[in-house]
């Protein structure tokens, strides 16, 4: 509800996020030609479809983003319970940049919502062997792909986590991790294949527009291949540095498990973020922050790191520290400064 109020206020004061404008522009293209001839320009299909269904006035998509954010919050709440959510949710709830992400960055929010669902299913599937969780994880990743191709990377990261999460469950079944990975990534790859096929079939062009978002330029390498890699790694580790809760969770896990493997495993999402940025996906420090916070919450809940009182205190301190760090040092994304000004400063005169 507070997000909705902020979104409406910002809209009433004349703000429309660049991402939302971009989606609405794509929806206009989608309806400008016969049949499927414009398919190559309408990725990501899920936000574009929402834009086609809803009034194209800037506010509708912002409201959609708020609703998806609410869904994500409820998923996390169900996963970890209210008391823990109050603590672990601080880095998301108390940081204005996250309010912007949650209310204005529709494709990213949609993708992250389904990623949250996928994460929950993934744990059920990989750790407890429940195939219903596998269904949920695979399908959620596929839907996530329809909002953000970064879902392919998320799926890859989950596969890398399989040996970590499912080690106990599938001991003595060497083929099991392979099976888990196959059923996790298949829907996402199928979705990518289907979309590629449609573009190729109905437009004659493949793979379609790779600049699917304002900041996306897949395989563009504007800073060169090596230069881009250096920049991507630097940015991703800076984003990691701002995710105090994630770092603390990784360290605590290492200490509890008495092995470095777990900590190294926790680096995988950071490397995936670097890869996403290097390849030219629609990467922003806000979504990286959101993603790492969500992963941290999942890890803390799954490995019951807050069950120990002293560890719980450490985690609470980490959560508060992250709020401070993020508020001070999280670099703004396009449109954020204007939004902040319009949403939180009363117009003068």
């Amino acid at each position: 509800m507070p997000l909705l109020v902020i979104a409406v206020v910002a809209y009433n004061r004349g703000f429309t996020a660049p991402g939302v404008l971009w989606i609405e522009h794509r929806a206009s293209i989608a309806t400008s030609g016969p049949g499927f001839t414009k398919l190559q320009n309408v990725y990501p299909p899920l936000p574009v479809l929402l834009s086609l269904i809803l009034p194209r006035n800037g506010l509708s998509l912002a409201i959609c983003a708020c609703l998806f954010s609410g869904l994500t919050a409820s998923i996390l709440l169900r996963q970890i319970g209210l008391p823990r959510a109050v603590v672990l949710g601080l880095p998301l709830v108390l940081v204005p940049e996250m309010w912007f992400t949650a209310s204005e960055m529709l494709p990213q929010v949609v993708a992250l919502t389904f990623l949250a669902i996928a994460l929950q299913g993934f744990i059920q599937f990989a750790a407890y062997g429940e195939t219903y969780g596998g269904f949920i994880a695979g399908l959620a990743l596929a839907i996530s792909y329809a909002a953000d191709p970064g879902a392919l990377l998320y799926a890859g990261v989950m596969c890398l986590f399989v040996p970590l999460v499912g080690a106990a469950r599938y001991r003595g079944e060497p083929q099991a991790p392979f099976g888990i990975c196959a059923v996790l990534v298949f829907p996402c790859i199928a979705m990518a294949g289907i979309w590629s096929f449609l573009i190729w079939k109905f437009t004659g062009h493949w793979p379609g527009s790779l600049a699917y978002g304002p900041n996306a330029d897949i395989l563009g390498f504007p800073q060169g291949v090596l230069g881009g890699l250096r920049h991507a790694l630097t940015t991703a580790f800076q984003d990691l540095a701002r995710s105090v809760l994630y770092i603390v969770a990784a360290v605590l896990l290492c200490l509890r498990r008495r092995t470095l493997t777990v900590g190294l495993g926790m680096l995988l999402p950071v490397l995936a973020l670097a890869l996403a940025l290097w390849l030219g996906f629609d990467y922003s420090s806000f979504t990286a922050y959101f993603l790492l916070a969500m992963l941290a919450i999942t890890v803390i809940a799954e490995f019951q790191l807050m069950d120990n009182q002293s560890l719980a205190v450490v985690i609470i301190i980490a959560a508060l520290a992250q709020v401070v760090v993020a508020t001070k040092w999280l670099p703004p994304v396009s449109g954020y400064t204007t939004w902040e000004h319009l949403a939180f400063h009363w117009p003068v005169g």
Partner: protein
Amino acid sequence: MHTYRLGIATIGNKHCVQTITQESIGERMAEILLARGMITQEQRDWAMEVRERAGTTLTVILITAGIVHRLDLYPLLAEMSGVPFIDLTVTPPDPAAVYGLASEQLVREGWIPVRELPDGSMLVASQHTPRPAFVESIQRAVGGPVTINITTDWDIRRALSSVLREEILDQASLGLWQRSAIQSARTSLYLRQRIAIIVSLVAIAACGWFWPYGTLQAASVTVATLFLIGVVFKFVVCMAGARRERFQAVTDEEVAQLKDEGLPVYTVLAPMFHEANVVADLVTNLTRLDYPVSKLEVMLLLEEDDLETIEAAKAARMPAWMHIIRVPQGHPQTKPKACNVGLFFASGEHLVIYDAEDKPDPDQLKKAVVAFRRGGEQMVCVQAALNYWNVYENFLTRMFTAEYSFWFDYMLPGLDALQLPIPLGGTSNHFRTEGLRRLGGWDPFNVTEDADLGMRASALGYTVGVINSTTLEEANRNFGNWIRQRSRWVKGYMQTSLVHARAPWSLIRVAGFRQAAGFALLIAGTPISFLFVAPLYALFIASLLFDSRIFNLMYPSWALWIGLFNLLLGNALMIYVSMMGAFLRKRYGLVLWALLNPVYWLMHSIASYKALWQLMTRPHYWEKTTHGISTLSASEAAALPAGVASPATTITSNGAGQNAGDVPRPRLPG
């Protein structure tokens, strides 16, 4: 404690010499057997202990355990009862003496009139001691005084088979049709159904002639919409099944709590035809059932002209609790007809069907008993899961396994969870015997009699459940054999659809709209979708070869979207559930094979066209599936890497590992 009068049963009311209890009969019999050296002291003690525990008679225990032959025991029983023993192979019953009697009573009570004696009484052979109430019942049935002789249960069954041959054949073949012709597939298409089909085809042809473009659009959209509904339905059911993954229909604790004395008599029917090569395997597999043998009645249903299988069964050294029932020859020569013959003789409270190559989980019967007790009287059947032991033999066995894993581990539990009608699988369906009789038994003219029975049960307001137990079968490894089997299944679904569509309003009224819709989507939808697979694939290939702009011109965008959804997402979803099915069964090596499902579905399409042709030309022809063609021995199958434990269970799995000690399956040329 029952009290019986023993000693003599002769004419009129001149019986009742001494009064003893059933327990004392057993004790006396045991003492006599011991005194005559026919059993040892240990065997006596064991039998008495089993009798205490299982609550059956000493006669049954000693015979089923193979300690005393029935030809030794029944004469003793006769001696103890003070009546003569009669050997019905030497003195066969006179058919005229049986004429007019209720055959069900003869089977149920285990007696048969032999001939009229000179003194005017009827000589009756009985497998039971002549208790007064029993004798009075026989007298009432015969309509006069009787002289009782004792004979063996085997003699009674054999004599009844012989004397009642025509009646058994008639009941097995035409029983359902005579009772309710509308429920029988004896007539495939009623006149009104023929008229409706012809009128529809003419109307479509006329529309195609006058409005070719519009008709094509309407037909395409209709087909696409049906596919869409079918895909969504299957996916929703599958997800409902997946949600119940952790749910155990029957737990091991519940099975452990069962006491032998409380268990009902269970009849196991095993219909076989030209399957001499797997008889010995079946005997071995059935002996592994965890159920007191004194309460098991296993009948191998063998066609009387199938001498090879009969000889193989005789040579298989079956335990005494297994019997051969010769199925009278006659049209139609189908598995359901054989099963109806078995049902005629069945004395168990529950009954189950196993195919010749089946390897049921040992505790399956007990799980079914728990499920029946919990499900109440309305639950007429429970279905166990089926899967395969020769998974990794070739493409077909792999695809078959993935398909069955999806069907039995997701779809059937999903249908159960959503309370939709469950089409029974061909084997491992357990029944309440009386409920099955009330339903009219199997339709011998329907080539998927099992699916039909499940639907009939639902249509009549009964329920069908599923249990978390698995029967392993042999997957079909041969293309021609597979097409024959699958075309029969698809033809059976077509027959079942036509039968239950004869009175659609009645179906909706009795079963409800939800059940009727479930039936339509599952039973009618399956053959229809298979029939459309080949043309749609052809259309897809054409679309790859020709300019796609033609589709933009021919179809409205929304119709194209539905078509594309079916083609791409629909196929992907069905592949995905197949992958998950393989995963659930821990067949990790099969997960990627599921990607080849489109090829497998094309094979289904070929089979469905054969089925359609046969429905028109030979509707009741039973395409026999050849079993025992696997090149793997059971022990080789056991050595394969993937486990086959039932999903979400802690059952004593009858998985590959359990069969490590099997007699090797005979190797036949591949």
